[in-house]
């Protein structure tokens, strides 16, 4: 809702990729206010957005899903973004909606980000088919790790120049701007997610298969993602061990894109998307190896979805994207709820929201109760973690 970012894209090397009819901008921005984004701009631009989306859809032979990419802490991304989500659900209910949302870290520079995030989360829980939350702090940690690795001069650990997750190699922009490295990681996430749909492989995995396999209950659709390897070493000595290391890393808490430790929480389902020259036996060997250390829910002990794509990403010989539906998102949500309650109890900044036409206090209470019940659902599943649930008794047939 402000022109600066979009204008920059239009003046950069990607100007030919976007059509001017695909862009909608306004002047003054949303002021980090979810209500402004959702109510004010939502009602003003609703028709125009629907029309533009419909026009873009007409160019497609077969539309598989919508990707929504926005942050949760701001005003436009979370406010107008959640409005667009509900618009898409109303107008095109059969097409799945996959949301990549950037969650604010604890030390966020936007003070009202907890309000914006919780208000938007309610929409995500009810209307999105699948959400991939990403936290800025985790991205910063990963970037630092890569930079640290690149700056050490240990022999044999020289990193291939274009083989890191943040290199942006193959991209067109040459000069690096502040959030570029972090955004590159997210771009790679989306690239790996769609790789099997774009390239051939021996076991294809489409986007609708991801929602099908990873979402056992409609509201529990928050997936924790991790990308490995972060960088490729220049010397190619031990291929098999590197492969196995890649799999092990995918489950370590340092590689997750939100601050969470999946190994100590309960897995509901897990998907592994492998790119490059990896065969099914390598995949099976690693699954066998890692399975005992990962706690899976009782009714989905072998809950793995696998995909093999033959084309590796630029600069790497193979890569792995792991998506997990895991109860480790619970702490992130609890944290968010706490930050929200801290502000809400004092009614701080509330008047900015309530001044907006159409916005009532009810939105806040409903949003927080939706978040609480979501946390409760995850807790219930967590409670079953250590319990040995007996197998359900089977139907018996009269002989």
């Amino acid at each position: 809702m402000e022109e600066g970012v979009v204008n920059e894209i239009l003046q950069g090397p990607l100007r030919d990729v976007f059509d001017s009819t695909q862009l909608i901008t306004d002047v003054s921005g949303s002021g980090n206010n979810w209500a402004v984004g959702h109510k004010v701009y939502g009602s003003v631009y609703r028709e125009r957005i629907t029309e533009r989306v419909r026009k873009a859809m007409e160019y497609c032979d077969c539309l598989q899903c919508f990707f929504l990419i926005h942050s949760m802490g701001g005003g436009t991304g979370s406010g107008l973004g959640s409005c667009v989500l509900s618009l898409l659900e109303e107008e095109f209910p059969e097409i799945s909606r996959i949301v990549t949302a950037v969650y604010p870290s604890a030390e966020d520079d936007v003070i009202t980000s907890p309000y914006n995030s919780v208000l938007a989360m309610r929409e995500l829980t009810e209307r999105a088919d699948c959400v991939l939350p990403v936290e800025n702090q985790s991205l910063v940690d990963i970037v630092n790790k890569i930079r640290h690795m690149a700056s050490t001069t240990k022999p044999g650990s020289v990193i291939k120049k274009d083989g890191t997750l943040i290199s942006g190699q193959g991209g067109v922009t040459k000069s690096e701007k502040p959030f570029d490295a972090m955004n590159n990681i997210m771009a790679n996430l989306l690239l790996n997610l769609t790789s099997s749909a774009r390239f051939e492989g021996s076991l294809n995995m489409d986007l609708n298969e991801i929602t099908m396999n990873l979402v056992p209950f409609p509201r529990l659709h928050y997936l924790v993602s991790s990308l490995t390897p972060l960088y490729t070493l220049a010397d190619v000595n031990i291929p098999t061990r590197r492969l196995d290391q890649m799999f092990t890393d995918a489950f370590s808490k340092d590689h997750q894109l939100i601050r969470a430790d999946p190994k100590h929480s309960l897995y509901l389902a897990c998907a592994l998307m492998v790119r490059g020259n990896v065969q099914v036996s390598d995949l099976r060997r690693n699954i066998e190896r890692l399975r005992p250390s990962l706690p899976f829910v009782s009714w989905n002990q072998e809950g793995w979805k696998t995909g093999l794509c033959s084309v590796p990403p630029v600069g790497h010989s193979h890569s792995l994207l792991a998506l997990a539906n895991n109860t480790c998102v619970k702490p992130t949500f609890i944290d968010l709820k706490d930050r929200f309650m801290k502000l809400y109890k004092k009614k701080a900044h509330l008047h900015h929201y309530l001044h907006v036409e159409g916005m009532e206090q009810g939105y806040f209470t409903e949003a927080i109760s939706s978040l609480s019940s979501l946390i409760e659902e995850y807790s219930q599943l967590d409670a079953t973690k250590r319990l040995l649930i007996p197998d359900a008794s089977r139907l018996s047939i009269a002989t």
Partner: protein
Amino acid sequence: MSIVTVQLGQCGNQIGQELFDVITSDTNEAQRYKLSAQGKAYGVCSQERFFHDELTGELSARAVLIDMEPKVITQTMATAAKSGRWKYGDRSFFCQKQGSGNNWANGFCVHGPRHEEAVGDLVRREVERCDRLAGILTLMSVAGGTGSGVGTYITQCLRDTYPHSLILNQLTWPYGTGEVIVQNYNSILTLSHLYQCSDAILVHENDTVHRICAQLMNIKHISFSDVNKVIAHQLGSVLQPAHTQSTCSQYSRNPIGELMATLVCHPEYRLLGLCSIPQMPSSSLAYSTFTWPGLLKHLRQMLISSTKMEEGKQAHLTHTILSDAQHKKLCIDWQVQATAVGQRTADKCSGFNTSMANLLILRGKDVSSADARGFLDPALYSPWLPAEGAFSTWRSAIPFNRYEKSATLVSNSQSLLKPLDHMVGKAWNMFASRAYVHQYTKFGISEEDFLDSFTCLEQVLSSYRHL
């Protein structure tokens, strides 16, 4: 008589391409075989069964390729054309842009009916090109969405359209440790529906074939292509021409019919398992020799202990030494012996695999000297069928796929009981917590449909257990 192959989904298409490859290379070898007249007859019969001649003189497979997304079909057809020996018909395929999302309900309730007519047309064109139709072979997996969902729907349609033709469904069961999370749901829905409309269901398990690749064929990095080659080899050894008992001098003109007549004599028992020996890396083929008695002893062993591959050590199996002199002839020195009929019930938990019916297919040198009487032991079979009626042998003097001697056993027995039980158990566990059920109900499969499927399969399990 010709067989029309319908390849469904990624698995079906990939296996189909390997199958036709194996068939063409085997036929080419046969035609160079020293018994040239017989080799030529073999080649002609095989060619008529699986291919038709295009006007350009090329061999075009009698197959229809179906998938809901285009990548696999394009790849399959290109690989076939590259071989130079055969290809797929230029218009014998059907694909859409978006897959079935591993969702059986999506395949069965949405894609199936939507594309029924187009697919039916393609199959009809292939069928009309055959002088006489021996049967329809469908290749599919049970874990995915297209192969399982669309495949089941198409099988039902084919049953309605060709009520007097035989339909043989080849199913690939997924790895036990998961390729797809909802694979157990997809599998039970497929099996329960197919049981009503298919004539026979021939099963391959990825786990077993993977073990064959790893342990017998010594492949270090097993890819799906290796797995598919083994499955194609096993299928080819069943479907290539052979002399069945009724046509001793000519190759059988009704392979599928005779297969079904031997193996599927009761509608409750339709699950067939395959094991084929020997399986070894092609580099070792030239250095190995086999004898028929050795091969047949092995195969009988595998049947009784229900293993699908040769293993050096056998699991514990209780055994009673038969004092009857007549039975002593059939004793095997591995100390597993067929038990007398009366003691069968005690052995139920010991892992003895009772068969409903068996079909032995022998191919290669000196095949007429092979003595298969070991398989006629009535102790191997369920008591209400005479052993002579439950067992038959097909022979072909032409070596198959460069194996000097090879033996394949197609059996309708309890060997699939355990994997099926496992599959139903896991699906039931997941269903008990209603996980993922909303994904199916949104396309039209209700909880009642699930319960019906479970009931049907529990019935099948119970029938096989009491064999």
